[in-house]
């Protein structure tokens, strides 16, 4: 049987999908054809390759999945651009109004409650903006975090998520800058380190390395060292990581 006639049968033979008689015919051909025998060997060795342990996923993937499910199944909050603009205006106006000294007769409790509502509104608008399709809107959302003295954990989580997953490098870089203001929070520093391990843009990697050095995060040393010794990483990034390890070491000594 010539090789070209065997093509389909060989594929079926490899998949174990031939009847005994058909398999015998293929084996008879294999006995005399080194070319087809070598194809069988490739198939067998691919099987060995697929059994290697390195293909095992990490357990942490499940917690990331749970977090995604939680985030995505929250009650939907869809903001139209005009509504976001209006929300920010109102939040800005009320924020400004209550920032000025209030008459002594006004009850402090009400003011505090209103301030809290304004703050919640502003944070909700920011989180919503970070989820927009337009990169410009997402950048605006990041810039708006500058109006918060101390964001709640939802805003921080949304910023970290943007840093890790946004498809636009400029947006990811802006997220690094915005998060630097809150680097005293352990969750932010952890977000930097985890994002650095996963980042693939040299620009973002360098921004993250610098942010970790500025935040004096000694916990990041291991990730930085791994980056430094990884041949597949951009040379400039590796040099920066090396410098960062030295600077962090000097600060902790």
């Amino acid at each position, binding site marked *: 049987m010539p090789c070209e006639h065997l093509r389909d049968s060989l594929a079926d033979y490899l998949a174990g999908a031939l009847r005994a008689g058909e398999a015998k015919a293929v084996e008879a051909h294999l006995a005399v054809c080194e070319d087809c025998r070598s194809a*069988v060997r490739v198939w067998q060795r691919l*099987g060995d390759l697929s059994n290697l342990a390195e*293909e095992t996923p990490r357990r942490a993937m499940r917690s990331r999945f749970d977090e995604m499910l939680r985030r995505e199944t929250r009650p939907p909050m869809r903001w139209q651009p005009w509504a976001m603009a209006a929300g920010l205006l109102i939040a800005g106006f009320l924020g400004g109004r209550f920032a000025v000294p209030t008459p002594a007769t006004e009850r402090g409790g009400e003011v505090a409650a209103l301030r809290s509502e304004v703050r919640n509104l502003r944070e909700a608008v920011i989180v919503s903006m970070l989820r927009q399709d337009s990169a410009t809107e997402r950048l605006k959302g990041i810039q708006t975090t500058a109006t918060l003295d101390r964001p709640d954990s939802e805003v921080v989580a949304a910023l970290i998520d943007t840093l890790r997953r946004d498809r636009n490098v400029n947006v990811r870089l802006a997220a690094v800058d915005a998060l630097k203001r809150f680097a005293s929070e352990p969750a932010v520093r952890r977000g930097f380190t985890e994002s650095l391990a996963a980042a693939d843009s040299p620009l973002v990697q360098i921004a993250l390395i610098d942010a970790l050095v500025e935040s004096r995060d000694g916990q990041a040393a291991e990730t930085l060292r791994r980056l430094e010794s990884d041949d597949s990483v951009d040379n400039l990034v590796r040099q920066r990581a090396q410098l960062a390890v030295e600077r962090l070491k000097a600060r902790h000594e």
Partner: protein
Amino acid sequence: MAASDEELMAEVRAGEVRQLGALFDRHHAALFRYSMRMTGRRERSEDLVQEIFFRMLRYRETYRDGHLFVTWMFRIARNAYIDQARKGRFEIVGKEVAEPSIMPGNEIEDEQELALLRQALAKLPDAQRELLVLARFEQMPYDQIADLLDIEVGTVKTRVHRAIKNLRDVFFDLTGGTHALRTSS
């Protein structure tokens, strides 16, 4: 008896999104293997798996009764991979794989041979690598692959055959033309 993938996905589509967790437990390892072979990098593979489940959740209404869940899942996986590859995020497929050095005339150890085969697989064109990953690593039947790729079953078999021979040739080139693959023990 445990619910089938198709039953679970129908529940997810109907709003029982927590059931996606059961599908994650069943299939994330297979998707991770697929992603590892396609991107060559662990972190990117984990991101890709995350993206695939995100899309399954978001586009759950596109799942149709009577269709195999696994085929639908891999269709989403392929699209997610293609989208991310287009953005240039996987431009260095296989770079994590260490290049084994081969001295002509020397015997290749078993482990080294597998490392070379991995390297050769990473060098194949995307479509051929994907076909071998699905057919061999995931042991997906040819008719299912045909459905997934929207081609005839005969075409799948021809392409598998061609991909194997190409892989053999790339492997041979990597060894400097000195070694053919051994049979597994």
